[in-house]
């Protein structure tokens, strides 16, 4: 009897274990689907629209989304009430702070009150100089309608810029249309632009401004790391880094060497240029010949010019 009882309880155990496992699997799957839903939703919901600019000191977006608790203390601490917490459907991750430059730009307070109370450091506490903030980067987008490009005087963006004369400079260009005026073209420099958006707010165009602040990741490219800009390097090291070489190596076809005018690149043992008068003369004799052929963009054409003429 006890045997049959234990069998019965075994069977019952088996059933309840099966029930337990299937319940567990069901729960896990249900919760997993819920998680999958949120995960997929987060793919789109974590994207921020380009008009939304983060407050000063905000960490790079991917860190910011892990760090910001969406508490709104920065919103409360902003004396100009420009910051908002995103509502669902704002195309900004729900609850995160942002401002819209066109309607309410950052006024660049010296003490940056929005930062120090940020509990998590999503707004970087080490930012103490507002001029070092990089909320975004202003870009002169509409070069057709911007009245400076039309040759009219405006310079509003230049004048309202809190880093005046550094973040936006005026580039004087010849006005080819009138032939006698200058155009005062606004040029933004990423080295100094904080992305506050005061220029975007002030732009006199209706609806969309000609100058817009974009997040750095949209506005600024990255020169390949192998690039070294010669003139910058010269400044850095106090002189040309290239020594005069005995023989300048151009990527020329076999048997051809660069010695146009015989100057500079081909030297004798003492380092003096070897001048071949036979190569100079033809150019002096017929200088107008060049006007027939417009200069090409291919440097080899120019380099090889003398050789062809010698032949």
């Amino acid at each position: 009897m006890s045997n049959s009882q234990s069998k019965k309880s075994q069977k019952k155990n088996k059933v309840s274990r099966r029930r337990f496992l299937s319940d567990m699997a069901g729960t896990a799957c249900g919760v997993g689907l819920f998680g999958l839903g949120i995960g997929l939703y987060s793919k789109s919901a974590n994207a921020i629209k380009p008009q939304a600019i983060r407050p000063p000191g905000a960490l790079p977006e991917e860190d910011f989304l892990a760090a910001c608790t969406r508490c709104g203390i920065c919103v409360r601490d902003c004396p100009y009430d420009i910051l908002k917490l995103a509502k669902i459907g704002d195309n900004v991750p729900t609850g995160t702070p942002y401002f819209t430059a066109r309607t309410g730009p950052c006024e660049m307070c010296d003490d940056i009150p929005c930062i120090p109370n940020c509990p998590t450091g999503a707004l970087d506490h080490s930012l103490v100089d507002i001029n070092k903030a990089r909320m975004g980067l202003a870009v002169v987008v509409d070069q057709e309608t911007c009245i400076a490009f039309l040759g009219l005087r405006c310079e509003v963006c230049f004048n309202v810029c809190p880093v005046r004369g550094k973040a936006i400079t005026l580039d004087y260009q010849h006005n080819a249309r009138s032939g006698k005026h200058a155009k005062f073209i606004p040029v933004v420099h990423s080295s100094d632009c904080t992305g506050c958006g005061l220029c975007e707010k002030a732009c006199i165009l209706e609806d969309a401004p000609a100058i817009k602040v974009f997040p750095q990741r949209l506005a600024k490219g990255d020169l390949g790391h192998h690039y070294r800009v010669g003139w910058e390097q010269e400044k850095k090291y106090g002189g040309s880094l290239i020594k005069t070489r005995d023989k300048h190596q151009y990527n020329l076809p076999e048997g051809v060497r660069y010695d146009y005018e015989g100057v500079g690149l081909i030297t004798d043992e003492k380092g003096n240029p070897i001048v071949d008068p036979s190569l100079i003369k033809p150019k002096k004799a017929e200088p107008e010949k060049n006007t027939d052929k417009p200069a090409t963009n291919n440097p080899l054409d120019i380099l090889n010019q003398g050789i062809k003429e010698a032949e």
Partner: protein
Amino acid sequence: MTGKANEIIGKEAIEKKGWWQAYKWLILRRISQFAILALFMLIPICKWMNPDADCALGWIIKGNLASSKVFNAIPLTDPLLLLQMLAAGFSKVAIDAIIGAVIVFIFYLLVGGRVFCSWVCPVNIVTDAAFWLRSKLKLTGGARFSRSIRYWVLGMVLVLSAITGSLAYELINPVSMLHRGLFFGMSMGWFVIAAVFVFDLFVAKRGWCTHICPMGAFYGLVGKFSPLKVRADARSACDDCAECYVVCPEPQILKPVLKGEKKGILPVIQAGECTNCGRCIDVCAEEVFHFGLRYKNDLPKVKTTVGGKHEVIS
């Protein structure tokens, strides 16, 4: 569940103890919930009345339940959010959030984890309203699923943070959405709150708070170790009216304590799921329940003494 389903719940308690004693904890709880909302609301109301005012009084507390700052000095942060942050791989958390999370954690550790749910959380007002309407409309049935789902959801929320590298759950978390929205603008967030209400009303009884919400699950785990508990020292006086089961958001934790005297179960509701809402204390005409510490297990089980104790403690 009870033979007196058509009667007003707590009618007997009102008759025996008087109206105040039969609603005391419910009223205190609502006062607490609305007072906390009102404190956070000071700034928005001030700004709404006069956009140019600097709202000095409002700096009593600013932020929301995710993080806040009291008197411009004391930081408070939701410890679950800190966990999500760490899970998401953000390690350079500023000291304020850590101090704030520790303060909040210790507070709920002392008074009961799910005191958050019943005394602070604004969604509780919504789901209690849904529960009330559900019983008014005599809606029964609906989906039944395990109450342990919330612990799975809690795990999922942390895993999700790790996978997405962001506080992904915060995108839809109705609790933070409501609390933030009330002070910073709700917009379409109302639909999410309405969804929770409708879910609790039609889909599952007390569906959100006691089955799914990962915040409740987290604070439930905290509350496992809390010293402040509902005690049933006078459980021998229980006359099986079962009204406490009706009002309790977690009725499954009541029965073992109420009926477990012979099994040697202590007269203390030790389960972390208990929200310390005190509604069972209100509704019990026999004054079986009272708030007390979990450690004193040698109280005499005499009703009058318990009644006296009850007065002293509350």
